[in-house]
Every structure is written in C-alpha cells, then in structure tokens.
C-alpha cells in the first residue's frame, strides 16, 4: 500500500496518451427507423391529418393533374411531329397542337402551385397541432413520468420527431405523384408501341434490384456520418461550455488531440457516405444510355421501316429522360416512411402517457374562505411499488402556524411537500387542505391556495416583472413593487439596467443565487396564497444576503400557514413547531425547547453542530442512536 507521500511524489509518464481521457459525451440515438408500415401508428398520425382531409384531397387531385400534364407534353410533341409537320401541311394541325400545349401548361401551372402550397401548409399545420397536443398532454401527465424522463429526450420528440412526421406528410403526397408518373410512363410507352416499350423498360427492374441491394449499406453509411457528426459537435459544445474549467486545469493539449481524432473520424465517415451516395450516378446514367441506345437502334429501324411514327420515337426519348426519377425518389421515400414510423411511435408514447391525476367531476373549488389548515392522516406513499418513502405519517398544521420539517436526506420531507400540492396521489390515508381531501378539490384551486418556493429558484426567460407576477399575471405594477420591497428585492432590482423591465438571461443567469432566491420569494408573495410551502436552499450564501433572506422569510410567512423544509438552524428555531422525519416516519414533534428536552434524534443532530441536517454524511446518522420509532 503506497503511503500518502509516495503518491504525492510519484511522477506520471506524461509522454504517453492518457488512456481513459475523453472529450464530449455521446447520447445513444433512439431507434431511427421503424417498420415501414405500422397500422396503429398510421391511424394515430391520420387522426392529426383528418381535420385537413378536404385539403389533402385537393392536393392529391392537383398532384394527379400535374403528373398527367407531365405525361401529356411528350405526347403533344409526338402528335405535332407526326401530324403537324409534314412537308407542306397548312399549319392548322400545328396550331391545334399549340393550343393543346397551351392548355396543358396552364393546367400544369395551376396544379403545381396548388399541390405544393396546399400540402406544404397542411404539413406545417399538422406539425403545429402535434406539438401542441404533446405540450398540452405534458402539462397534465403525472410528475412521476416527468421525474423519469430526461427533458432532452422530450425536447427531441417535440422537435426532431415532429419534423420527420412533417417530412413524411409532404413526401407522401409527392410520392402519390411519383407512383402515378411511374405507371403513367409504363402504360404510355406500352400504348405507343408494345415491343419498343418492353425493350426500353427492361432497364427499369435492373435499377430496382440495384437500389434494393444498395439501400441498406448506403443508409448505414449515412447514419454513421450523421452520428460521427453529432459526436464531434457534442465534443465542441462541451469544450465551449466548459472552457473555463479546461483552461484552469490546463487540458487544452489533451483535448485537442482527442477532438482531432473525433473530427477525423467524422471526415472519414462523410467521405464514405459520399462514395455511397455517388456510386449510383454512373449506374443510372449507364441504364439511361442503354435505353436511349435501344430506342435509337430498334426504334430507328422501325421508323425506317415505317412501322413506327417518328414522333413516337421522339416521345420515347423524352420519356427516358424522366424515367428513373420516380424510382429514385420512391426508394428514398421508403426510408422516410421507416423514420416516420419510429417517430410516430415515440410521439404516440408521449400522447398516451396516462394522466394519473384528474379532477373529480364533483370536485370542490377551494375559495378565499378556506381556513388554510393542512393535515396528514395516516399517509403512506412511495414512488416505486413496495418502497414507501412515507409510512403512516399523521400531523396537522393549524391556520397561521409555521411548521419546520427536518430530517436527514431521504427522510421524506420533499415528498410530503409534493403531496400537499397533489403532485402525486397517496397510497393510503389522506391529505387535507382547508379540511378537504386534496383529491376532492380542483387542482387549479389547489394551485391558487398554495404558494411554493422550491430549493432551486427556477426563473423563466423574460423580464423581472413577468417573473414576479408569474403566479398571478393580473397583478398590478404596484403589487409587484410592493412584494419586491417586502422581501428586500426592490433595491437590487432598481440597480439592474432597466429595473423591473430588465430581461433575465436564461434561468436568471445574470443574477446571483441570493437574488434569484429573493425573486422567487417575491413571486410567492404575489401569489398571495393561504398556504406557503417552502424548501429552503442549502447552499450557504454570504452573510449579508443571508440576513436579507431570513427577513424576507418572516414577511412571507406572516399571516399564512407555513410548511418549511428547513435547513438553516435559524429558520428551524423560529418555527412554531418542528416535525422530525427519519426514513419516512415522523419520529418527533414539538418546539425547539421541547425537542431538546426529549433528547431524541433532533437534539443529537443539533448538538453535532451541523449547519443543516441535510448534508450529514450517511455514516454519521446511526451515531445519533435512534432506531425506527414506530
């Protein structure tokens, strides 16, 4: 065993590459491709498209008209050549052809406008509706779902997945056109001349077969390029966000080498993908060449023998130019469909998250006459089956009383707080607010009766005033100033560049922790609820701000029922009553003096001189010598 000095003195071999060092982290992508067709998901998607079905019908009709005009143009050319351009003809046939051509291109103009504009807008609308539906759902789903789910994942559903649905819708309508065009060309060629048609079309299956074999490895290479790209970008973003740490720990050289490696992998995978993307170009060109040569040799001889009109030959040559486009886009459409199914699956998952907590039909509205008492009656609750975090907890907080909840980390304080607001439903027993079981009250009125201050003061992007009146958007400017003054925030707000209209950066990044705390107090004060539930911040703040926060807390609690998860001894001692929780069980209750006299967990923790009961190391708690008091 090496001693401390040995370790301090030993030299590392810095010439070699550090073996474990990494830059950037990579989140495994969620399944990108699903089954190409899943009826359940298609039905789900269709429910979003259904409101626009008349518009969809219009655009499909427009697509059909557009495709038909495309098919018609070579036919008109053919007719003009064969019937209108014979030497010495009077030009009337040509005139008719030109008239037909004019009509066709006018239809083409209208149809091309209609198809793209209607389908483009519908797709945007569907995207909008889907995102709206998901957001609305997420406002109602139970918090246990939100606890389990990363915000980043949800965001990618709200953005990436929704976008691939939009792409799918747009290309779906277009691929109707592609299919029609493909069949149209086949039918027209066979109609013009069966033998020449068959010979010319012989190349088409070849391309299909080639695409069939090409697609899977090509898709893999595209995905690989996409992935190495996001890996390299992730490393770059990390380097920028953590630049101060990188510089202060002098990691630039190591990081550069690691980043260079990831970037180079990215370069290689992109070049590989480029090879896959381009390799089909000469194949398609060769097949086109073969078809053209066939028409020239076979068709040309038929023309020479007068078994084929010259115009037909020209028309064939025209069709060949457009021949492979639909096949190319249809095979691509297949991937879009697979991607859309995977996305649709994920979107449905969000839309189908059960709403665990709903208002009863006969739920009561807690009004201003509610007395503001809070009571727990034999409450048992947990997040996972058979692992209760609160066990048979009973207590009552009288109107106007301030109660401090204390106990080591994991004792169930935060869960109790969440239950008052009915973020979750209890397993057993009941939680009463103003004498009503919270399950009998409307969630909305519950929200307006209880103001909450969370440990981490979460502020929203927007101005200071918008944040303070977040809970009551109708609050007047005077109300806001009054609240800010009461909690001692007015002074620093006035020092901000634009006072109450100062824009807060993301989550209040331009304020100190103490200032954010005071703003969240002011926000709770404006809410003017009967009951205040507060989770005190644990981080120590400088003494000046600390003093201000303590004063603000007193203002906030005046005339309200207060439940405080207290970390500061000052707060605890000022409470009317202290509830001590351990392992989900309420073990002690009383004021400071009473509890000190009892000589239980509270007095032991208190005498250990910890600044707060929360950061007490696990191993220190058993020393308090308290078993489960049941």
């Amino acid at each position, binding site marked *: 065993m090496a001693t401390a000095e040995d*370790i301090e003195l030993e030299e*590392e071999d810095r010439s*070699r590459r550090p073996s*474990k060092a*990494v830059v950037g*982290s990579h989140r495994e992508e969620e399944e990108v491709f699903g089954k190409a067709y899943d009826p359940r998901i298609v039905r789900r998607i269709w429910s979003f498209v259904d409101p626009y079905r008349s518009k969809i019908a219009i655009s499909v009709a427009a697509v059909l008209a557009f495709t038909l005009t495309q098919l018609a143009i070579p036919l008109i050319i053919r007719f*003009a050549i064969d019937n209108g351009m014979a030497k010495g*003809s009077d030009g009337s046939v040509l005139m008719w*052809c*030109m008239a037909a051509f004019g009509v066709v291109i006018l239809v083409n*103009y209208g149809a091309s406008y209609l198809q793209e*504009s209607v389908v*483009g807008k519908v797709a945007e609308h569907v995207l909008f509706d889907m*995102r709206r539906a998901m*957001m609305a759902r*997420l406002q109602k789903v139970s*918090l246990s779902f939100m606890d389990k789910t990363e*915000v980043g994942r949800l*965001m990618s559903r*709200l953005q990436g997945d929704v976008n691939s649905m939009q792409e799918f819708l747009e290309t779906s309508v277009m691929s109707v056109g592609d299919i029609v065009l493909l069949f149209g060309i086949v039918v027209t060629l066979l109609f013009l001349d069966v033998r020449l048609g068959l010979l010319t079309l012989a190349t088409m299956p070849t391309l299909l077969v080639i695409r069939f074999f090409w697609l899977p490895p090509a898709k893999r290479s595209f995905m690989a390029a996409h992935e190495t790209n996001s890996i390299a*970008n992730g490393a*770059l973003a*990390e380097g920028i*966000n953590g*630049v*101060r740490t990188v510089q202060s*720990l*002098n*990691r*630039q050289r190591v990081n550069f080498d690691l980043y260079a490696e990831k*970037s180079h992998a990215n*370069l290689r995978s992109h070049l590989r993908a480029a*090879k896959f993307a381009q390799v089909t170009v*000469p194949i398609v060109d060769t097949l086109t*060449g073969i078809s053209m*040569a066939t028409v*020239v040799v076979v068709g040309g001889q038929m023309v020479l023998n007068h078994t084929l009109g010259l115009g037909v030959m*020209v028309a064939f*040559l*025209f069709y060949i130019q457009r021949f492979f486009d639909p096949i190319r886009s249809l095979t691509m459409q297949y991937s879009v469909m697979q991607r859309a199914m995977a996305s649709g699956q994920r979107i449905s998952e969000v839309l189908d998250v059960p709403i665990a907590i709903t208002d009863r039909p006969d739920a009561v509205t807690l009004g201003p006459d509610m007395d503001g008492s809070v009571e727990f009656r034999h409450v048992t609750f947990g997040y996972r089956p058979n692992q209760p975090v609160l066990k048979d907890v009973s207590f009552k907080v009288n109107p106007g009383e301030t109660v401090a909840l204390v106990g080591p980390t994991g004792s169930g304080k935060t869960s109790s707080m969440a239950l008052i*607001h009915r*973020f979750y439903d209890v397993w057993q027993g009941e939680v009463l607010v103003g004498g009503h079981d919270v399950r009998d009250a409307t969630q*909305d009125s519950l*929200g307006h009766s209880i103001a909450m201050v969370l440990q981490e003061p979460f502020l929203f992007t927007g101005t200071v005033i918008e944040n303070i009146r*977040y*809970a009551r*958007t109708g609050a007047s400017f005077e109300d806001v100033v009054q609240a800010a003054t009461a909690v001692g925030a007015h002074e620093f707000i006035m020092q901000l*560049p634009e006072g109450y209209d100062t824009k807060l950066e*993301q989550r209040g990044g331009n304020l100190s922790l103490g200032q954010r705390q005071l703003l969240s107090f002011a926000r709770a004060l404006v809410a003017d609820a009967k009951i205040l539930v507060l989770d005190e911040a644990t*981080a*120590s703040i*400088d003494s*000046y701000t600390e003093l201000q926060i303590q004063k603000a807390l007193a203002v906030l609690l005046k005339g309200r029922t207060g439940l405080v998860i207290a970390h500061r*001894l*000052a707060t605890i001692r000022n409470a009317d009553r202290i509830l001590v929780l351990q392992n989900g069980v309420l073990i002690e209750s009383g004021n400071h003096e009473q509890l000190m006299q009892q000589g239980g967990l509270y007095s032991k923790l*208190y005498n250990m*001189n910890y600044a707060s009961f*929360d*950061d007490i*190391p696990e191993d220190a708690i058993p020393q308090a010598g308290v078993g489960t008091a049941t």
Partner: protein
Amino acid sequence: MSTDRAGAKRRANAFSHVAKASWGKGVGTLWRITRLNLRHPWQVTACIVSTFIAATLQLFIPRLLGRAVDEAQGILGAGSAAAESALWSTAMLLLGLSIARGIFTLTQNYYSESVGHNAAYELRLATYEKLQQLSFSFHDRMHSGDLITLGILDIEGVRMFFATGLVRMVLLAVLIGVGAYLLLSTDLVLGLLSLSFVPFVGWRSSVVQLKLRATWLELQDRLTVMSRVMDENLGGIRVVRAFAAQEHELAKFDKASLSALELAHERVDLRVTSTSAMNFSFFLAMGLVLWFGGLKVTSGEITVGTLAAFLTFMTILQMPVRQLGLMVNSFARASTCGIRLFNLLDLELAVKDKPGAPEIKVSDGTLRFDHVSFRYPGTTRDVLKDVSFSAKRGETIAFVGPPGSGKSTLVHLIPRYYDVSSGAITIDGQNVAEVALDSLRRQVAVVQQDSFLFTTTIENNIAYGNPWAKEGRIERAAESAQLHNYVAGLPAGYGTIVGERGVSLSGGQRQRLTIARSLVLKPAVMVFDDSTAAIDAATEQRIRMAMRRYAEGRVTIIISHRLSSLMHADQILFIEDGRIVEGGSHLELLARGGRYRALYDLQVRPDTDAPAMAGE
C-alpha cells in the same frame, strides 16, 4: 458575480461588429475560402476537370439524339443498310457518352464533397483550438450558444461553398456558355427562343433563394424562442404546477409556435409561387420552340432531328438553371459564415506567451502581489486597486469581503485568466506575465464555486486536469475531499457517469468532486474560490483536516463567506471595493474591532447561526 453581470451587458452586442459585412470583405472572404480549398490542389483539379468534361459530354447528348432522329428518317444516309449502321454507331456513341458522363459526374461530385469536407475538418480543428486558447475576457463577452453555432453552422456554410457555389458556377458556365454557342450557331431564332427562359428563371430563383435564406434565419430565431419556452416549461414543470400556471404556459407556447407557423406558411408561399412561375416560363419557352420549330420543319428549313435536339437541350438546361439561385445563396451564406469564422480565427489572444517565454521555475514557492490594479477590458472601473501582499510555501491566506469586492477577480489574475492592468504578480520572483502560460497554469490550481462537470465517469472528472494520474492518486484525492465513501457506494463506483444521463450530484457533492479534481494536480499555488459554500461545516472541517497534507508544500488561498472556513488561516485579508482594508490573523482582526469583527458578530450572533460556529 459582479463580473457575470458586467459580462452580460458586454455580451449583448458582442456580435454586432463581427456580423457587419461589406461587399469588399465578402469577396475577400470568399477568396480566402477558395484558397483554403486550393490546399488540396489535386482534388480541386480533378473536380473541376471532371465538371468540364461531364458538362460538355452532356451537351452532346441532344445532338446525338437529333442525329438519330434524322437517321431514322433515312434522310442522311443513302440506303437503308447505311442508315441502319449509322443508327448503330449513334447508339453506341450515346451509350459511351452516357457512361463517361456518369463516371465524370461521379468524380465531380465526390471530389467536390471531399474538398469541402477536408476544408471543414481543418476549420474545425482551428476553431476548436482557438476557442480553447481565447482568454476568459473573450468568453465573458460571448454567449456560449453563439460560439457553438459558429463552430457548427458557420463551418457548414463554408464547407458547402465549394460544392454548391464554386463547382456549380463552373458547371453553369459550361452548360449555358457552350450550350448557347451550340444552340445559336445551329439556328439563331430557335436558339434565342430556347434560351429565353434562362434569364427569367435564373433571376427569379436567385431572388427567391435570397429571400428564403433571410426568412429561414428569421424562422430559426422564432423556433429558438419556441424551444426555449418548451425547454423551460419542461425543466421548470414543478414551478408551473406549483402555481397552476399550465394555461399561462400553453398560451406562451401557442404564441411562440403560431409565430413560427405563420412564417413557415409565408415561406411555403414564397417558394411555391416562384417554382410554379419558373416551371411555367420554361414550358412557355418550350411551346414557342415547338411552334416556331414546327413551322420551320414544315417549310423544310430544319429537320425534325434538329427540333428534337433543341427540345432535349432545354430539358437538360432546365434543372441547372433553376439551381442558379442555390448558387447565389451559397455565395451569400459562405460569405457571412466565413466573415464570422475568420473574425474569430484572426482574433489576437488577449493573454498569450511572450516570445521565448521560459518555463516557470518554482523553488521557494513564494507568491507576491506588488501594487496590482485591474479593470476588466472595455470597462472604466478599477475592480482591484493597488493590492499588495505575499505568501510563502506552506502558508494559508484567506480573503473575505462583501459580494463584488473583487476577491474572485484577484485570484483569477494569478494563473493569468486576465492580465493585470498595472503592478505585477510574481512567483519566486518571476513575473507571471513573463513565463510560459502552460507552465504557469500547471503551478496554479483554482477550485471554482460552480465548476463544470463533464458528462463522463467520476474517475475521468477527478483526473480531468491530470489524466495520467494513477488510480491510487485519484482515490486518495476523493478520500481527502470526503467523496470516496459516496462513490464507493455507487454500483459502478468510480466508473459512474455524472450528469443528466448518469447520477445527478447534489451541490455539496459537486463541490467535493471539484476539490478532489484539484488534488490530483501538483501546483505551487492552490486557490479555493468559495468552493465549499454548499458543503456543510462539519464535512468541510474534515476536508480541511485532510488537506493539511497537501497544504504543506504550497501556498493555499481561501475565499469564503463562512468565517469558520478561514479563521485558521495565517493571514486574513479583508477586501472592500477592490482594496485590502484590513489584514492579520483571526485574533488580531477580532481585537482590532473593524470590519472583520463586524462580520464575525453578524455570523455568530447567538440567535442566528451560533451553533454552526461553536464547533470551531
């Protein structure tokens, strides 16, 4: 914290000077991108030559088709046997031409991608390195999100320039130039008619692409607003629920989402109106060619084959001409992206090595501040005024003072995160500004209050500053920082990933990890910048005991609001408004009855936090 706020103000218009682009600057930038591409001369040559050949080959296809049509009429050859063999040779030529065109298009496309990707790769490395080197004052000024955009999207814009700008320009020049020559020399009137759609479509598509680009940028802004609303709503879901603000939130979301939808619809209109107009103008030109050509065929002036050649020419020209707009767009995008990128790459480093700066040599390990004053670049207020003190190896110095008094700024000057405005900081008599930055930073470790944790294992995070550290050293550092027991209790131990995708650490645990991170280094000066704020007093004391071993060989500087964290220091310096106003040991300062005494009384007043202090 005051620096944060000052930074925010400066940040607001940080990009304004960067984003302004003059015409001359735009051209200069495009030339610079081109030079970057020319660093791969063979690939560029292969690409351009292939483009020429592929485009020229493509232009001959309509002629061959026309010839075949005429041969089929038997008007070129004498007998049917001769006509037949003519058809055969034309067909073979067509096939050969098609294959060759395909192959040259492949090399054209592949090498244009390759040149772009290689340039992007080099730019990525240069950008990454530059961003790592740029000093704190730069990063204070810039929004990290803007820098990430720059490193991702702007490089993308520059990458695309070669393929969608330069190569396409060559392609269009050949197709339109050679194509026009071939058409006009065959038949002037028909040639003019066939080309009549080119100016309109080219102009139209350029205008629309530029408009689409402008609205795209606007749309991105609106989408950013929307995604921020969603992100905050989901991240702050407890606040939303706590205040029953769901309706309010949905209204906020609707507003943001609707404004994006409206613009998206405008863009659809813009795009579709122009596409259908371009299609129409093309078909109109085609109709005119068919009509006049038809009349000419009737009168025997030209053959059907010539007419067919004209018509197929047009179909070949149609796509590239429509892409003229994309080319213009690529030029516009590359020049704005390039200007931003090159502005960054050309920035002078505010803090850098003097030429030939020697490595720092630490002997006694004495740190000295000699009349140091400092103001942040671009501001007029001195944050530090004439600060002098010194500390020997083994000594602990503590700084205390009201928020914004300049404590953090002071320690940031030692590893040269910023350079002093006047005065000097020396370690063993060597001015920190005169020695190699890399060697200096190895000797100074600053433990920040809120340090960045990387999404990787706990082990990698602790060893971040010294990835060569042996496991034993990492564990000892964790032990000293009172983190080992917690880590050892995790299922994956030191291999546990931290962050959103791994375990989430409490504020105290994060700070302990940050402390452990500094303990794997071997610096001459170790700074704890309010780095125990979230750690309770008792744990902190245990850390302090463990740290004694590390403190022996170096100068330790402590900044803290909590007096219990620093009352044991050899020297306590009270800072107010950038000046040292009091200095001495704990007992001396208490006896003096000045500001330190006042702060002490505030913290240990019996009705507030007295028990927390009693342990000292």
